[in-house]
């Protein structure tokens, strides 16, 4: 995998830094960071699928929602313990990932993106009309059991999850599987011409992505304790995930984490000045500027800076 000393040093510093955060920042900031952690998980999920294979998902909340609703319904309506409901939620989301895979076997590019958007809209409509006694219908659900009490514990759980997902995916994408998934994004015909099953590779990407989305969605709902379909299946939420991954640096795993933190804090700091949806306009502008400066994202900016520093040393 070509691991170097600085990889260990950087990951170590990152983990230690996260562990110390509750000592350094206010509870309010910590709550912001909790959201950033979950957004990072969702952006990694998007990155594994769309960043690698080029199948752009505009409907990632579809997958996140499956995970969230599954565990919310199981725990609240049927009293299933979370140790059981969360794994079931992950598996159910993976099944959802296979549903999203189906169009990807036939269509590419913007067609695929539109279909994923349709999936999100579809599930939004479905949870409102199909068995509202279970889903809570339009109003959603509240009183979903929470796993942690207080910002500090919520932070530690989310940070632990985010780091686990990020580290696992980062290592996995450094293997030849990561190379093969990138190859699918660059030229599917040549992947086949190299003797690899492009369909199976796509399936792996969709399943991995769905598993992460399901895991993130399930834990997120057990942090919030409420589920609101209108906020969950929302195009702005889908865009926030995509923008986080893109401005951080798609196909790098670390980039989406950086992007998620960057975006969350940007939105947070804009809140006092722009309480409404105008904030999204500003972040769209910032994202665009960053993107024009370095299409490969913040990760690439940092990487080049680091290379320069090492060049001097």
């Amino acid at each position: 995998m070509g691991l170097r000393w600085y990889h260990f040093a950087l990951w170590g510093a990152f983990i230690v830094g996260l562990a110390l955060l509750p000592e350094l920042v206010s509870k309010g900031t910590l709550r912001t960071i909790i959201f950033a952690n979950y957004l990072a998980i969702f952006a990694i999920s998007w990155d594994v699928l769309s960043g690698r294979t080029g199948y752009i998902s505009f409907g990632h909340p579809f997958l996140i929602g499956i995970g969230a609703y599954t565990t919310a319904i199981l725990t609240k309506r049927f009293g299933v313990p979370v140790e059981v409901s969360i794994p079931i939620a992950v598996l159910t989301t993976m099944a959802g990932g296979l549903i999203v895979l189906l169009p990807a076997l036939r269509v590419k590019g913007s067609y695929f993106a539109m279909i994923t958007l349709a999936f999100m809209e579809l599930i939004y409509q479905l949870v409102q009309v199909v068995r509202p006694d279970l889903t809570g219908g339009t109003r959603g659900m509240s009183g979903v059991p929470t796993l942690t009490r207080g910002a500090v514990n919520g932070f530690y759980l989310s940070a632990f999850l985010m780091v686990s997902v990020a580290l696992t995916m980062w290592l996995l994408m450094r293997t030849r599987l990561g190379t093969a998934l990138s190859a699918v994004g660059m030229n599917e015909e040549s992947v086949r011409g190299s003797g690899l099953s492009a369909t199976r590779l796509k399936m792996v990407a969709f399943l991995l992505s769905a598993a992460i989305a399901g895991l993130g969605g399930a834990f997120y709902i057990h942090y919030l304790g409420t589920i609101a379909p209108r906020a969950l299946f929302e195009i702005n939420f889908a865009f926030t995930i995509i923008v986080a991954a893109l401005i951080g640096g798609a196909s790098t795993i670390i980039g989406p984490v950086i992007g998620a933190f960057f975006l969350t804090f940007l939105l947070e700091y804009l809140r006092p000045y722009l309480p409404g949806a105008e904030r999204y306009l500003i972040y769209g502008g910032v994202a665009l500027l960053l993107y024009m400066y370095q299409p490969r994202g913040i990760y690439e900016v940092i990487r080049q800076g680091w290379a320069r520093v090492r060049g001097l040393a």
Partner: protein
Amino acid sequence: MTQALSITNLVKRFGGLTATDDLSFAIEDGESVGLIGPNGAGKTTVFSQIMGEHRQTSGNIHLYGEEISSLTTAARIRRGVSRTYQVPRPFSEMSVAENIRVGLMPDNIWRMIVEGPNTERELELALSVGFAESDLQRTPAELSMGDLRKLEMARTMATGPKVMLLDEVFAGLTVGEIAQIGDLIQQMRGDGMTFLIVSHDLKALEPLVDRAIAINYGAMIAEGTFTEVIDNEAVRASYLGGVA
């Protein structure tokens, strides 16, 4: 001798156009055969049917005695047949080494993960097609047409074929590069590789093949030694009358 590749009564229609017209031929194991014909004769289409990229309308394709028509492209490559593309199709954001790495990968997710890349073999393949070690980290955008063809060769060789289908490997190459790729093919022939080679550069092709097949409008028009085929009336007429 065993037959490496045989094609029987192959027909491919694209709508009203017959791109392969009742074509039959066989290649012995270790043999090298030239496939010639004017532009649009249907040479590339034969390759894409052998690889399963296009399904034939009718007819059979056997690889070492096994009918492979129902197999996926990946499965055919695992059985030992591999091709280069007339228009090189590298993985554009990957280095030369990574491009070759994809060709070397087993079609097995688990092994992709647990086994590291075989960097020695990557280097060996890159050197064998005429790259320098310093080229390994270059990306396709920095490569000349000649280098792209070499990369195409290396990635095809990486899949471990017993039968190689080469589509216009000399197009866009310098005289020096043509000699280099020619030497490589000769060396592989010495090692027992089976070839089916398409080339418009007949001079470069001649020393590389044991015999030749000429097609036009998807149908065979001549078969025999290289000289017999290029001296054939119908072949000469097809080249003169063709769009070339």
